[in-house]
């Protein structure tokens, strides 16, 4: 999950900007810290060689320099921020080989549902994508706010009920990577990690066909079941019976999850999922 070991162009560009920005700032921060320590040491009162100028409180030249140094640095970094924000806008499409894959991600309490509308399948807590292909994600939440983040592949983006956010990415290496929910969303939040399987484009249709051979179907009813607060350890797959499920959720045709059941007893009213460790 190392940010400095990116496996796709978006994560690589993010981490390059991270490193560049730190390098730009270190160029003034290191001399500043050295100066602080050096001045503090040299002008200690026990140093007889140090001069003492008790009235030195203003120098136009120094003032000019101390305003100029941070200003110039910020102008440089501001450029980085401006260009970076535009190039790495999560909504901006990413180039790739092969046909793009569309995925609709839904954060639930406390699991991730990935819907493949074009393939007619859905998966729980595990996402499979072909290497090299542009991946278009649309994201929403089935209950509270969460955030979708695959440290080695893509930028972070919020998921919010009744709203759709968009994210684009591409994976350049086959393998299994970790994704996380990076916005606290309640007691089961630490178990919202998911696996991202990056497989070869040749294997992808086979995987879809295999996944479709499940006896579990995803429609409004089974979605309602799924959206109850729980932690899932089994990575289930579903046949997508209702291709407009995501749109219905985002437009509130499917209401948001009910949340924990309220008991009459106020102090006991928290419902930690029974299978939360």
């Amino acid at each position, binding site marked *: 999950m190392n940010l400095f070991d990116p496996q796709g162009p978006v994560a690589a560009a993010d981490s390059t900007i991270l490193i560049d920005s730190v390098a730009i700032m270190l160029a003034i921060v290191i001399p500043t810290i050295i100066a602080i320590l050096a001045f503090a040491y040299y002008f200690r009162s026990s140093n007889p060689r140090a001069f003492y100028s008790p009235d030195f409180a203003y120098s136009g030249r120094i003032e000019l320099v101390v305003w100029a140094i941070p200003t110039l640095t910020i102008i440089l970094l501001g450029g980085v921020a401006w260009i970076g924000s535009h190039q790495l806008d999560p909504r901006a499409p990413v180039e790739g080989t092969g046909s793009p894959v569309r995925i609709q991600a839904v954060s639930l309490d406390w699991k991730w549902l990935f819907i493949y509308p074009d393939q007619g399948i859905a998966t729980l807590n595990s996402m499979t994508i072909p290497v090299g292909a542009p991946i278009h994600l649309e994201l929403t939440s089935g209950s509270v706010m969460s955030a979708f983040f695959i440290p080695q592949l893509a930028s972070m*983006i919020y998921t919010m009920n009744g709203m759709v956010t968009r994210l684009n990415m591409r994976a350049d290496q086959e393998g299994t990577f970790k994704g996380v929910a990076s916005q606290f969303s309640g007691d089961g939040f630490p178990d919202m990690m998911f696996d991202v399987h990056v497989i070869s484009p040749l294997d992808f249709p086979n995987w879809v066909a295999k996944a479709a051979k499940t006896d579990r179907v995803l429609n409004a009813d089974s979605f309602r079941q799924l959206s109850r607060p729980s932690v899932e350890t089994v990575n289930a797959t579903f046949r997508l019976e209702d291709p407009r499920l995501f749109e219905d959720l985002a437009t509130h045709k499917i209401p948001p999850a009910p949340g924990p059941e309220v008991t009459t007893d106020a102090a006991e009213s928290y419902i930690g999922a029974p299978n939360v460790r």
Partner: protein
Amino acid sequence: MLGKLNWSAIPIDQPIPLFAAGLVLVIILAVLAWAGIKGYYPYIWREWITSVDHKRIGVMYVLLAMVMLLRGGTDAIMMRAQQAIAYHSGGYLPPQHYDQIFSAHGTIMIFFMGMPFVIGLMNLIVPLQLGVRDVAFPTLNSVGFWLTATGALLINISLVVGEFARTGWLPYPPLSELRYSPGVGVDYYLWSLEISGIGTLVAGINLVTTVLKLRTRGMTYLRMPMFCWTTLASNLLIIAAFPILTATLTMLVLDRYAGFHFFTNEAGGNLMMFVNLIWAWGHPEVYILVLPAFGIFSEVVATFSSKPLFGYRSMVMATMAICIISFCVWLHHFFTMGAGPDVNAVFGIASMIIAVPTGVKIYNWLFTMYGGRLRFETPMLWSVGFMVTFTIGGLTGVLLAVPPADFVLHNSLFLVAHFHNVIIGGVLFGAFAGYTYWFPKAFGFRLHEGLGKTAFWFTFTGFWVTFVPLYAAGLLGMTRRLQHYDVAEWRPWMIAAGIGTILLTIGIVFQILQLAVSIRHREELRDATGDPWDGRSLEWATSSPPPVFNFAITPDVHGEDAYWLIKSHAKQQQITDHEEREYKDIEMPRNSPTGFVCAFFATVMGFALIWHIWWMVVLGGIGAFATFIAFAWRDHDEYLIPAAEVARVDRANLAERRAAMSLVGSAP
């Protein structure tokens, strides 16, 4: 009869909070019993609880902050221990408990440690630095303090009665809405901050009015010590920002209590409205905390370098620039919401711009040291430690303002490490510097140097050992607020951070030890001169502790560093003795129990609102209102200190000072 409250609200089955609360209760009862046996109650009531003296109120604020630092620190130790243990296991804290702890840690440290600490120091020192006898609204000042204490009390009651919020220190909806958080935890959060927020607002109004309206003769704006400037900036921010907090929390209250839909998922509610509003308060809030700390460092660095502050006007400009720009950057707290690149870039660059005046401040402190004669006493150690630490914190802060970097670092432990870097390295170091610097002024004796320095080195080292690992874990993709995790590469960093927490704890233990030892040896540490550090501003012109009227004769100011000028003038003219002074009667405000009584009723009302005990809400509301009415109807609000008494006090102080000075003079 008692609303939602019943016996099951007491967590009998959870040994940790029960034990902690039991221990606290025993300590409180022991202190109360001890004070009762010694017969201190009338003294405490007369001289402290009902006091409207800004110095007493300042001391009480700082005391509250220190007690809350212990509470919030305990939470921190528990969290770091949990994350050090909870690899492939559940740790020792179940999620519903762990989630309360990190929420309480943030809430307490910001609202009931940081805020009271800086407001307390401002209360204590600003009127002295301005050369005046009191703040603008003394009784309101007392009300502000006691309402803050009410908020702290309510949060701590949640430890034993019911639960605290499990939503983080800013309760983002819809998680904090009734549907997803049906318990009383969020209600504890809301009411304690609604009440203490009003306390903070009146404290802000009071201090702004004091700085703008009450300055001694000749104290023009550009002769005010830097601490007064940062006080002005910080309190202007309080006045502008805290109403936003109160209004936002009120909207959430309406959602939870009255079925409104400001922030709910359905019926047109929008959670991002809460997120925007809370950060429109939340970002200025960090400058409300750190600006007074900048002021403290300005005073300390100048004093211990035996030089005036370098680039005073630049500093004033930088302070006011930060004050204004801090209102234009709140969106950098949620770059990842999917706003367009233009929005992100504009707010990212605006956030970076704040680094310019802040950087200027660092350089000005640096050049204040240049050509100075640096005395490394405890406050100066905290200041140099701050300059190094804060520079790194600033670097990571500007990094997080670059949207693409934030896309991979947001909500990670890197972010957590960053804001602890600036809040511990900036606010807490500043508060400790101010505490050791002004302690002799408040109590008339110094704090033990050796223990203070030991505390500094443990805290400084402990800080880096704790938070460098958190930076590293963030770069490894570790999200904040995880109750357990299965990723092997995070584990060693969590253990290292745990070790750092032990060092930080030792630092705090040394601070407590320092206070205890100093009180025991107060006669040897006595400061008879009123000016133990060879200070430059007017608070050192009076005795330590100052008389209730601060200055027998309010001083005249002829330039920056007012007291330094008086001293060098005296030296030049070979004046060894004060001319006979002409004393006048002094009017001082009367003590008033208004603040305490009002806060008592506010506590009753807040508790009743949390548990839906409606008759008690009405009772508390009427009580608090009636207290105000009674206060408004008072006939005598001031009393007279006759000139003879002023003369007696002042002559005694001057004689003591002269004796101390000649003792110093005769030393080889």
